[in-house]
């Protein structure tokens, strides 16, 4: 066995290594022949497994070619008709932010590092904005606004703060507006003070969803907000529980808007005889058939009691070990308990349709959605209607479709067949070539053993992408294309079909990165301008997006 080389490792890493080794314990002798014979003896005949092919893989998935060797390797793969074959060129730009063109002013103040860089898709001006509370307050995430840019921070993150007696504070949701990428921002008043919020622009309307309190607002100018009535949002789960509502990212199709809704019970402790614990408790089945009551101390689960849980004709009955009743819960079954045990929470889900000034809950058909996560369904609006996706405990992905957001039908789950995603870490939507693309990130269990993203433009046909680390996260720059990988290798394309490395971009970026001395953050494009946030380490620990690299390409119409 290789001994770990401690050179260049700090005390914290040494302690991590020490603790990990201690908890695992020493090496053990292995009866290798017995294991091998056991495996060989019980194995079915080897049958070549069909490979997942990607005949419709889009060319931009090729773009992050780290080295010439990889280029050659991929070319060879293509030549032999292997895993990845190129498809047709994109014909329609992704859903874009096409109203804003020039986001860097002609004159950039000398105090802001800036310059010009030549790239294969043309010359670009760049500026690196180092955080300064007077001219560049957080947040850094921008989106087109009615008169320039909007900058939104959803809050919720723990960050260093200057409040007396506090080291860490939770950031509150904030919205700012500015005329361009570097001008002073003006804070916009949000209609409600909340712990967290989500701002989603959809077809000329900004949707603001907040958490604690749960509210939903819409606006056509990001200044005047119309509240939506959420009074009809009632959990599809057992009515006797005290449900807290949380909204997800809305989606729009055909003029209709649908919002995913997550319901989490606040009073699970009541069922287990510990109402004081609220939602910070779960049952865990014991070997004797009873359930241990476990308090979630936020530092781990601690055993605090024991209960019996029995199914009745109408639901569940909870009692102590001597048989004294504690509570009943109508409309629930063992699935709820198993999900509660697994996730530590009681959650349920549905979606809600915006109708006039209110939202109406719409149940997704089929069995309850209890599963191993507390993420709600992911909604995806396509030209043909809505799609909803939700991971199931067996690794498949449940699917639903609706043409109007009101009537939903459950489709076959994804992941039961080759050529479909499963075991999703997360499901999200993002701009694709032909409009929004639903993206599922998975870890494939075949010989590739790699994280792979899957994409779909219609919610039905899925295309496996490349290894996420090599995947091109394509950004449309006007009528040209730009990609960067996790390794920060940049490529450009004039047609979306043929790509070439753009090393000058890496050089400029790394200049900026050195100035920022932080780690990498998200990047996004508005018109012909690329925004690239840089995470900066804070004195009190943690990181925060506080620097911003802005790169504006010349020419090209959006």
């Amino acid at each position, binding site marked *: 066995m290789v001994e770990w*080389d401690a050179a260049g490792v700090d005390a914290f*890493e040494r302690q991590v290594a020490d603790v990990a080794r201690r908890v695992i314990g020493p090496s053990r002798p292995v009866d290798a022949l017995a*294991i091998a014979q056991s*495996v*060989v003896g019980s194995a079915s005949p080897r049958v070549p497994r069909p490979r997942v092919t990607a005949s419709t893989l889009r060319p931009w998935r090729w773009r992050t070619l780290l080295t010439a060797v990889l280029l050659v390797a991929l070319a060879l793969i293509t030549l032999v008709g292997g895993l990845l074959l190129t498809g047709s060129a994109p014909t329609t730009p992704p859903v874009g932010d096409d109203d804003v063109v020039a986001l860097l002013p002609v004159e950039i103040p000398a105090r802001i590092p800036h310059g010009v860089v030549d790239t294969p898709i043309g010359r670009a001006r760049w500026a690196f904005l180092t955080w300064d509370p007077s001219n560049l307050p957080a947040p850094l995430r921008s989106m087109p606004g009615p008169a320039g840019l909007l900058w939104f921070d959803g809050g919720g993150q723990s960050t260093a703060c200057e409040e007396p007696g506090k080291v860490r504070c939770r950031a509150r949701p904030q919205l700012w507006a500015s005329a361009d990428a570097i001008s002073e921002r003006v804070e916009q008043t949000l209609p409600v003070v909340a712990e967290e919020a989500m701002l989603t622009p959809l077809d000329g309307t900004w949707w603001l969803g907040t958490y604690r309190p749960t509210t939903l607002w819409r606006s056509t100018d990001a200044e005047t907000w119309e509240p939506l009535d959420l009074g009809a949002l009632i959990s599809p789960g057992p009515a006797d529980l005290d449900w807290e509502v949380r909204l997800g990212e809305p989606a729009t199709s055909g003029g209709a808007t649908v919002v995913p809704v997550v319901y989490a019970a606040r009073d699970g402790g009541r069922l287990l005889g510990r109402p004081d614990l609220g939602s910070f408790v779960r049952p865990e089945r014991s070997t004797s058939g009873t359930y241990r009551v476990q308090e979630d101390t936020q530092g781990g689960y601690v055993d605090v009691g024991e209960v019996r849980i029995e199914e009745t004709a109408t639901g569940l009955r909870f009692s102590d070990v001597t048989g004294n009743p504690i509570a009943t819960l109508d409309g629930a079954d063992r699935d709820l308990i198993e999900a509660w045990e697994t996730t530590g929470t009681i959650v349920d889900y549905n979606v809600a349709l915006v109708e006039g000034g209110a939202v109406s809950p719409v149940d997704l058909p089929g069995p309850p959605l209890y599963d191993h996560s507390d993420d709600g369904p992911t909604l995806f609006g396509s030209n043909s209607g809505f799609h909803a996706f939700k991971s199931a405990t067996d690794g498949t992905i449940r699917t639903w479709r609706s043409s109007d957001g009101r009537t939903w039908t459950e489709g076959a789950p994804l992941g039961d067949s080759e050529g479909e995603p499963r075991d999703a870490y997360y499901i999200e939507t993002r701009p694709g070539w032909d409009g929004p693309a639903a993206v599922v990130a998975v870890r494939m269990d075949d010989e590739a*053993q790699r994280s792979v993203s899957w994409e779909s433009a219609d919610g039905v046909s899925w295309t496996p992408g490349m290894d996420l680390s090599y995947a091109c996260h394509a950004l449309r720059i006007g009528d040209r294309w730009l990609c960067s990988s996790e390794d920060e290798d940049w490529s450009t394309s004039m047609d979306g079909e043929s790509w070439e490395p753009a090393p000058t971009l890496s050089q400029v970026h790394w200049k900026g990165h050195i100035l920022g001395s932080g780690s990498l953050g998200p990047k996004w494009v508005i018109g012909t301008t690329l925004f690239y946030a840089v995470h900066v380490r804070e004195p*009190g620990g943690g990181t925060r997006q506080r620097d911003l690299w802005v790169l504006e390409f010349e020419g090209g119409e959006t």
Partner: protein
Amino acid sequence: MTGVVGEDLSGVIASAAAGDDHAFSRIVAAYHDDMRRVCAFVTRDEALAEEAVQAAWSTVWHKLGAVRQPERIRPWLVSIAVNQARDLLRKGRRRSEAELLANARNVMAGVDPATGIDSLDLLAAMDRLDPEDRALIAMRYVLGFDATELAAAIGLSPPGTRARLARILGKLREELGHG
């Protein structure tokens, strides 16, 4: 490096792929314990770890013929075992936090003078990491994988792997207040 010492690794793999169970047993002998140790850290359950590795060997037996880079076999094997362990955990077969801590008999409570962190607190923080992150910790700090091996095991590039490891350590540091 752990391996099939003194033998042509490609030849051993080819023999095993051709059905030679003795050749297969040499591979098992060389790598089984590495796989078990990582899975033990991922699952914090010895029985589950053994089950994961046993299942992994079945997978390996069927896929040995697809091995194209014999020098990468160690991270490949470990990653298959980790996937099996992750699947077992996902099926709900995980231990409670209390059980995990009770099983930490090899970890002595006490503050490391160099970091000011109690080892049990650190262990509890590592237990709260995702299984994939725990696997990365074990591969790096127990098996001594370098960035290239880690990259092969988890399907990221070496720089991406380093970045991910740094994020995991940063998360632990932040949780433990180690600036």
